[in-house]
């Protein structure tokens, strides 16, 4: 087992870290979250210019040939900054689905736009009744001549408002919860019959409810083989779990370190509150939760980097379970130890906690992944 980064990975880490420290202030983040786009388009272009949007794509597709390790390297730093730019939705999820299952033509059409920052994507896979079951799909794709007609409804589509293209899961055969018969389609977000209702999320991102009403797509929209889309979808989602988990690790690091610093400064009864043993122990427990999560992050990334299979899936679920539990603990205690300040909008603490809370829900919460871990 080897936990060391390559020179390129270290440089990437330093590059993202430097940007987060110098050019990604919390105040600017808050302001950008209120903009029409919900993030900074200038930052997004900078991400592209620095090569971050192409890191995880193969060199043949115009990227840098990175993978799971590079995903955690960047995402952990994004967690430090509480980044709201849609890296997860565009690069990891939508881009990931095309990376894993797209045809050469589809990759040529969509990936360059992702990599140069000119295009945004979204993966529409959630349905209201499905909870975290990726196979519970009522949206249908009915064969129609050379193509398909999509009908259905997708919920909480991350980055839906900004997406130029959508990757959509739909049922081409089988019953509502069958694992076979699921297909993925990539289509222009402005295709006739696609309608959206946009909204902000609790953690300052943007999402949409999307209705597909007799949406006609060509056969070339099909991602992978008809009826075999679940495996592609699952892999993209597991990439997503790894990314948000690493982001959570970054969030937790900020929370425990800021809390320690605050408790060194804040005085009560004539002494820093960080001198009180009960608070010290609580901060140590926060530190421990972060370290435990970080260790499982490395384990999951290494498993994913070695090849996607049941061991990798198991490691990813283990990581997500830990992140869910640890994130809640670290977030709650950071707020608690900051006292009333921790509950205000002006302080970053509560915003990190909100993001951690949402990350627990994203792609399956603790209970879901614990169940999945036990069955793999």
């Amino acid at each position, binding site marked *: *087992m*080897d*936990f*060391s*980064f390559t020179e390129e990975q270290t440089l990437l880490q330093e590059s993202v870290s430097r940007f987060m420290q110098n050019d990604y202030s919390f105040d600017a983040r808050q302001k950008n979250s209120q903009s029409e786009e919900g993030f900074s388009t200038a930052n997004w272009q900078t991400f592209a210019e620095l090569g971050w949007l192409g890191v995880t794509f193969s060199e043949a597709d115009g990227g840098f040939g990175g993978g799971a*390790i590079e995903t955690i390297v960047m995402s952990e730093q994004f967690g430090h900054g509480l980044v709201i730019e849609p890296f997860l939705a565009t690069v990891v999820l939508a881009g990931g689905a095309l990376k894993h299952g797209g045809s050469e033509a589809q990759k040529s059409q969509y990936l360059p736009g992702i990599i140069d920052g000119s295009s945004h994507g979204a993966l529409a896979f959630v349905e209201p009744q499905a909870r975290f079951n990726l196979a519970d799909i009522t949206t249908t794709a009915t064969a129609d001549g050379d193509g398909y007609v999509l009908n259905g409804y997708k919920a909480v589509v991350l980055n839906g408002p900004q997406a130029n293209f959508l990757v959509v899961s739909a049922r081409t055969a089988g019953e509502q919860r069958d694992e076979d018969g699921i297909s993925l389609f990539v289509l222009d977000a402005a295709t006739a019959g696609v309608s959206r209702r946009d909204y902000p999320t609790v953690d300052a991102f943007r999402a949409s409810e999307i209705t597909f009403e007799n949406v006609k797509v060509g056969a070339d929209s099909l991602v992978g083989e008809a009826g075999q889309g679940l495996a592609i979808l699952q892999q993209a989602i597991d990439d997503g779990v790894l990314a948000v988990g690493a982001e959570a690790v970054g969030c937790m690091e900020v929370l425990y370190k800021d809390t*320690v610093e605050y*408790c*060194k400064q804040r005085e009560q009864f004539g002494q*820093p509150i*960080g*001198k*009180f*043993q009960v608070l*010290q*122990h609580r*901060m*140590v*427990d926060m*530190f*421990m939760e972060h*370290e*435990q*999560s*970080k*260790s*499982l992050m*490395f*384990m999951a*990334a*290494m*498993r994913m*980097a*070695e090849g996607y299979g049941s061991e990798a899936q198991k*490691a990813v679920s*283990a990581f997500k*379970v*830990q992140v869910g539990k640890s994130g809640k603990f670290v977030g709650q205690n950071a707020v608690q130890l900051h006292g009333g300040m921790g509950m205000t909008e002006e302080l970053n603490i509560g915003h990190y906690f909100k993001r951690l809370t949402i990350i627990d829900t994203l792609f399956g919460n603790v209970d879901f992944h*614990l*169940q999945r*871990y*036990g069955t793999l």
Partner: protein
Amino acid sequence: MQFQLFEAEQAFADQVEEFIAQHWLDVAEPRRRLSAWLNAAGSESLRQQWYRSVVEVGWSVPHWPIEYGGCDWTRKQLHIWLSACLKYQTPAVLTFATAHVGPLLIEHGNAEQRALLQRMATFEESWCLGWADRRAATDSYGVNTRILRTPRQISISGTKTRVIDGMTAAWMMCVTGGEGNEPNENRSSIVLLPLDQKGVKRDPKAALSTGRAMAEIVLNNALAASWATLDVPLDELRRRLTGLAANDLSALADSAALTEQVRQLKDRVAADPNMEFGLLRDCDALAIEASGLLGMEQRAITQGELPLPAVRLRAQTLWGKLSELQIAAFGYYAMPFVDSALADNEGSVDNTRPVGEMDMTMVMRRMLSPAIATELGVDLHDSLAQEVLGLPVQDE
């Protein structure tokens, strides 16, 4: 980054597995091995047989320098060896002598003291720690065992209480106060004291668990050689004994054993149709945490980016959780205080349990077994708060 062991590491791991299979797993049935692992009466010959094999292969003190019998191993090799010993529940390779006394003597001892190393490395002489005095705390001011130095020897008088392994040890690392009447931290000494002598009287001290023997040891002008004072500050000794020394990797090998025991527990829980479903999920949750502990161990030994006390603290926590789950899994059979591994004539009370599996008494014994950190009143939280997080020292 790479999850799998490198080729050379895998070859070493295979060699270790083969050695343990040949010299431990294949030499006795599970029940006898468990007895020996627990240091139970009647298991001495099996323990000695194991130790002889370890000494013969040269792996008894791999963490010591080569000139004192150590191996030229990487930190990963050490981790592989110690992990396997814990996983297969061999008699402890890391004893108080090999884990603590030996490294101290190597680093701080004089020539006469270092001469004691050889019999530690061969497991011929065991050691104990004499710190707490009767009716005294374990802080430095509380030590009231007195010493009297003459040019030829040191005379020690006092009563050491709650001495782990004190009934069987050949030597004691004895913490003493000064020569005057008043306790004085600055005059504390650490003396290497042979216990098989006239001035030493040992009485068993009942422990909550029936495991490792504790002793109350009365020292009445017990004699140590003039060279027997170890030149180590008491605070440094405390740091080392509680696992805070920066180079102490000796106990960072729990994850493999935890993972194996969780797996066994889960198999048993899963096979029982009346077992609560939540327990199965708790087993999975603990398996995940054990996996995280493996990551922490690896980061601590290979990258050095994680402080050792953090790994120890995590391991302690997870062993506690495992014990809780095991107790839960026993159901009504959590109640009998009968040691099936030792009840050779009648066997286990719970006859549904396979021979050689841990029983409730063993679990309780492990939970209650005194640890040095507990004995010295040290909480790793305090160390981590101050040394890793940089928080201020609490008021006395």
